[in-house]
């Protein structure tokens, strides 16, 4: 029996879908059997980020309504054979399914997969309730902005009521120089406020945008620091203890040399 993990944030645009795609892919790279479930009915994105849009035949709503079997709707990712996607419908809206239906689908998926990663829509309405229904654990994504942290706090409150275990926190799009200058909320500040366990800190990285546009999750590359951060998150989910990586890019010899002479 696998575990269902919902990835949620409250606020939109903080990187839920990107986080779902990358954590899911990273877990698959570790040989885990992973199914990504997109519950953002009407505004599906996960298939686009995963580069699987053109392979959708059936979707989540079809499965819920019994129009097809679960197996028919699952899209196997050709790049990693242990990774599958259950896409959302684009033509309906959140009220097309009920929390009970999602719970049933996730329960079925858990029998087959080690990890069922549920991508939650923004907001706290029906879509959120649907996404949370089948989850055993929750990952809350936030960015170091006041508004995002406020919404994360609200979501954690709601998750506590849903009895979805203690959520874990991913702080996304961190710009180390802004944090250092005090222009951005500090990791410590965020943890102090939200008072939940930190799962990982992902630096702001253009490579993530580029790879999402290409339909290749960033973790597939070894070039970017964001990829490394997502890999570390996956390892922590698997129970390894991985220290937080330093936020700063390691300075090259030339930069050190320049700094030494105050040239900057």
């Amino acid at each position, binding site marked *: 029996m696998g575990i269902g993990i919902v990835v949620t944030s409250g606020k939109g645009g903080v990187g839920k879908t990107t986080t779902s795609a990358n954590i899911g892919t990273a877990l698959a790279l570790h040989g885990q059997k992973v199914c990504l479930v997109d519950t953002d009915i009407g505004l599906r994105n996960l298939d686009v980020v995963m580069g699987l849009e053109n392979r959708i035949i059936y979707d989540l709503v079809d499965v819920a309504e019994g129009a097809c079997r679960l197996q028919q709707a699952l899209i196997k990712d050709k790049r990693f054979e242990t990774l599958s996607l259950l896409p959302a419908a684009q033509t309906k809206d959140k009220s097309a399914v009920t929390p009970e239906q999602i719970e049933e689908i996730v329960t079925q998926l858990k029998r087959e997969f080690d990890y069922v990663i549920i991508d939650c829509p923004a907001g706290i309405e029906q879509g959120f309730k649907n996404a949370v229904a089948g989850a055993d654990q929750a990952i809350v994504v936030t960015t170091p902005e006041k508004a995002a942290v406020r919404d994360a706090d*609200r979501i*954690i*409150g709601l998750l506590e009521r849903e009895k979805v275990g203690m959520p874990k926190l991913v702080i996304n799009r961190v710009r180390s120089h802004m944090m250092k200058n005090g222009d951005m909320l500090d990791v410590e500040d965020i943890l102090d*406020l939200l*008072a939940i366990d930190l799962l990982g800190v992902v630096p702001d990285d253009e490579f993530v945008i580029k790879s999402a546009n290409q339909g290749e999750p960033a973790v597939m590359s070894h070039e970017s620091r964001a990829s490394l951060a997502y890999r570390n998150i996956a390892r922590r989910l698997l129970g390894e203890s991985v220290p937080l990586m330093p936020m700063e890019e390691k300075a090259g010899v030339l930069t050190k040399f320049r700094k030494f002479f105050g040239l900057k």
Partner: protein
Amino acid sequence: MSTVTNKVTIKGTKDGLVFYMDDTCSFDDLVADLREKIEHSHQQILTGPLVRVSIKLGNRYCSAEQQEQLTDIIRQKGNLVIHTIDADVITKEEAFAERLKTSFKIQTHTVRSGQVLEFDGDVLLLGDVNPGGTVKSTGSIYVIGNLRGIAHAGTNGDHEVIIAAASMQPTQLRIAEVISRPGEEWAEVTGATEFAYLQEGKMLVAKMNYLSRVRPDLGEKKR
């Protein structure tokens, strides 16, 4: 009913009539006497313009049905309006509820954004109140943690209550009907251990060691 002695004493006050009910006889005797007085013997006195009636039950505990029975009899007279029913005794449950209201409530809870905690009486909150979260109480609010959200003490209009926090950095403070934000009436948020109180209708925030001067009898109040 010839042996009925006086179980119900009716007295006139400037606020209307007061019915003193004997608390040593049986309830049935009481009802019988009340019925007798209302329906027969006191006809003349009890007619006329609208009169407010208070019922004093003394040391007799009356259930809701029994109270209903008494008021029904009195209401037969269209001009008698029941104002209050008082007894000097209450049940253990009521007493317990009363005690809960006046005793400390200890809560271990993080009040997160969008959550509202409401209480009767004084509250000791062991946890944080995050921005967007609200704690309300009819009494005082003491937060052992960070108060970053909204605290509203004395929601029934009590001006004597205070709001205290181990780390005072609220978005807003309210005591009774007075609303205050940091940076207005009081200085910038320092996050220190402070308390807020009302003085002549204005909210002030001070260091905790000042409390004994401002509210010297705060600790004694409940005893």
